[in-house]
């Protein structure tokens, strides 16, 4: 069984976020970028599953600009067998990423797709759920424990919910998104960094995967001057209260 892990390149967790001087967004030039910590946990879990003999191959995938290759190299240095980079310079929203992931799943046919529960830059927490929906696979989100049963082809996922722990049994193939307490990721050792240099990173473009990158969101609005005006609009124009 193959495991596919989606990893995202984000502004490093420890960097102090600054707004661009023209207020158009977050400053990302000359800022330290790293692998999203939840993705790191996802990759670690995949590697542990492989090391326990329940999977044959771990494939790290990432979407975005060409520098994503650096993040994929980190993934390879941690122990992923090979990597796929979908090069896209436009802004990617969760739905586009989910569509790209679905296309890659169709190519690679993994038995398990692992993602971080969310990325620390936009905190969307949507991609895993969307791709599960597109693939029509069962999903176990916010996993704090994962146990695979190879014979029955079932993954047992413990997840942290408000009231305590919830245990789900998923038929494979399935989508799992990882929470903070699932594991503690390993460091990239020198021998593995050396090995990673000879591992393959395959490139795709969204066109090759037949995915159209566009924003499905359209934001419209007006700026109101007072709370009274807001309430008035919500009552009389939007009819929501």
């Amino acid at each position, binding site marked *: 069984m193959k495991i596919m892990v989606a990893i995202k390149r984000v502004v*490093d967790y420890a960097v*102090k976020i600054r707004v661009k001087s023209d207020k158009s967004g977050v400053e990302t030039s000359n800022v*330290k970028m*790293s692998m999203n*910590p939840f993705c790191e946990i996802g990759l670690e879990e995949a590697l542990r599953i492989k090391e326990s003999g329940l999977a044959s191959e771990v494939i790290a995938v990432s979407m975005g600009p060409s520098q994503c290759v*650096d993040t994929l190299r980190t993934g390879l240095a941690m122990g992923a067998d090979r990597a796929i980079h979908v090069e896209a310079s436009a802004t990617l929203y969760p739905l586009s990423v989910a569509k790209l992931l679905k296309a890659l799943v169709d190519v690679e046919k993994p038995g398990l797709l692992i993602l971080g529960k969310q990325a620390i830059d936009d905190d969307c927490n949507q991609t895993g759920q969307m791709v599960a929906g597109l693939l029509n696979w069962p999903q176990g989100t916010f996993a704090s424990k994962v146990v695979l049963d190879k014979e029955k082809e079932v993954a047992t996922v413990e997840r942290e919910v408000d009231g305590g722990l919830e245990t789900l049994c998923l038929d494979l193939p399935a989508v799992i998104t990882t929470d903070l307490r699932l594991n503690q990721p390993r*460091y990239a050792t*020198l021998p593995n*960094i*050396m090995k990673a240099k000879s591992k393959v990173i395959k490139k795709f473009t969204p066109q090759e995967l037949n995915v159209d990158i566009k924003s499905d969101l359209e934001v419209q609005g007006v700026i109101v001057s007072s709370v009274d005006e807001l309430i008035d609009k919500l009552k009389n124009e939007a009819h929501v209260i």
Partner: protein
Amino acid sequence: MRTEMWRAAHRLISHRSKNLCDPRWNPNFHNSIHNSSGFTYNFGRTCKPFNPYLIRHGSDVQKYIYPTRDYIENLHGSTEPCYGKSFRIQNRYYGSASTKIQRNPIFSTINSDDINHFREILGEKNVIQDEDRLSAANMDWMQKYKGSSKLLLQPRSTEEVSQILKYCNSRCLAVVPQGGNTGLVGGSVPVFDEVIINIGSMNNIISFDKVSGILVCEAGCILENLISFLDDQGFIMPLDLGAKGSCQIGGNISTNAGGLRLVRYGSLHGNVLGLEAVLANGTVLDMLGTLRKDNTGYDLKHLFIGSEGSLGVVTKVSILTPPKLSSVNVAFLACKDYLSCQKLLLEAKRKLGEILSAFEFIDNQSFNVVLNHLEGARNPLPPSMHNFYVLIETTGSDESYDKEKLEAFLLHSMEGGLVSDGVLAQDINQASSFWHIREGIPESIMKAGAVYKYDLSIPVEKMYDLVEEMRVRLGHSAKVMGYGHLGDSNLHLNISTPQYDDAILAQIEPFVYEWTSKHRGSISAEHGVGLMKANKIHYSKSAETVQLMGSIKKLLDPNGILNPYKVLPGSLASSS
């Protein structure tokens, strides 16, 4: 030659100290004998039943400071009537007879007129007599030295410092300037009843020049605050050390702290461009230049860098700060022996050259203490035994270039057998966790039990021999650990025992000092001399040099009120 010199000097000291104990010389002699018969401040013994309690409950440093403090305060209560009559050095760890110091009788004691005068200068709330505040200021970070000051002053300006010192000098009141009180040699706490002048309220940043990177600030600025202020401007402090959250820049300069980045940015003698200091008689010396080049006469600011507040109180500083570079990489490596560490250092200097910013080494024993006692520490390497660990940091301006360079260096060292295993931080979090191990060593060793700390400069090739010799010498009675700044030939030798024990101390000292002296090292690389090594200065400096230091002290502080009993041997201070 050098050995001969210190021997001669040492004889001189022992001779002098005999005089000090002579009853005819000391007017308080009878009182002191009387009072100390029932009670001594030799905490090395009185704390014994208490130590296991501390260790069991000491899940972090802060938590276990308080019980000791209460304990010592209780002891204190019982000695209250003795104040002014008898003072023994309140030295918890090194309570052997040789380190006992008597209070210098020429110093006055504080009376209510003094308090009123200070209130006039500083206002009611900056004259502190509150027991709790005082007990914190009286004890050092390691709880090793404890004074019994009754007064803490918090000046807010150079003018106030000047008025305080002028008054203290005229009244012959001894003072101890204090910053963040993170010193390791007892230099920042009173020995007896010295007035504590805490500079912490003087914490304003005066100016920052974004082109030249020159920062001018008051001496009470906390190092970490300066670091984060500069970070917003795109610059960094040229020094960084584990205590950055509490230590103050004035104290750093007075100690001439070295820290983790010295290998890259050099010592404070190079980075401090100017300073303002107040002399014992209240004279304000304005040497607050912001020039990199200034060859007009004697460069007197250097006298105040590293003189531990014994020549004057540093009130303002101007520092040259380097620009912050965006690409920082940290590797944590394992080496099989000390020779490999040395070769690796040489290779790193050659191959990493301009981007190398730290080169630290940790031996196996220190590493294990961290893993066992430091919260949140985990072994970054796959579990297997290694004898030495090295932390290498590079700082440069181009992420991909630096990383490529460092990786190439590491892989080459690995192929050459210099490095047996290693990890490279992939994000800032991982980098901090490697640093956490290195910076957490002192804290972990404190949690592990009693500790004897030595901070030595020794030629790199000989450095670890001392650790090995100490291991042979002490056998199973103590755990000997070595770590430090290999890039600066600076060894931190720490010896850990379950309890403080004079017999162990006698095995360590003066052996460590003699050994260091024999190999032409320094007995204080970056911690300073303070109270701990005041009588040991001869191991590293010739008698003539120390004599001249004494003359300088005499010239700048004729009454000897500034940080007495410290830096220079007692014999010099009382010889006049």
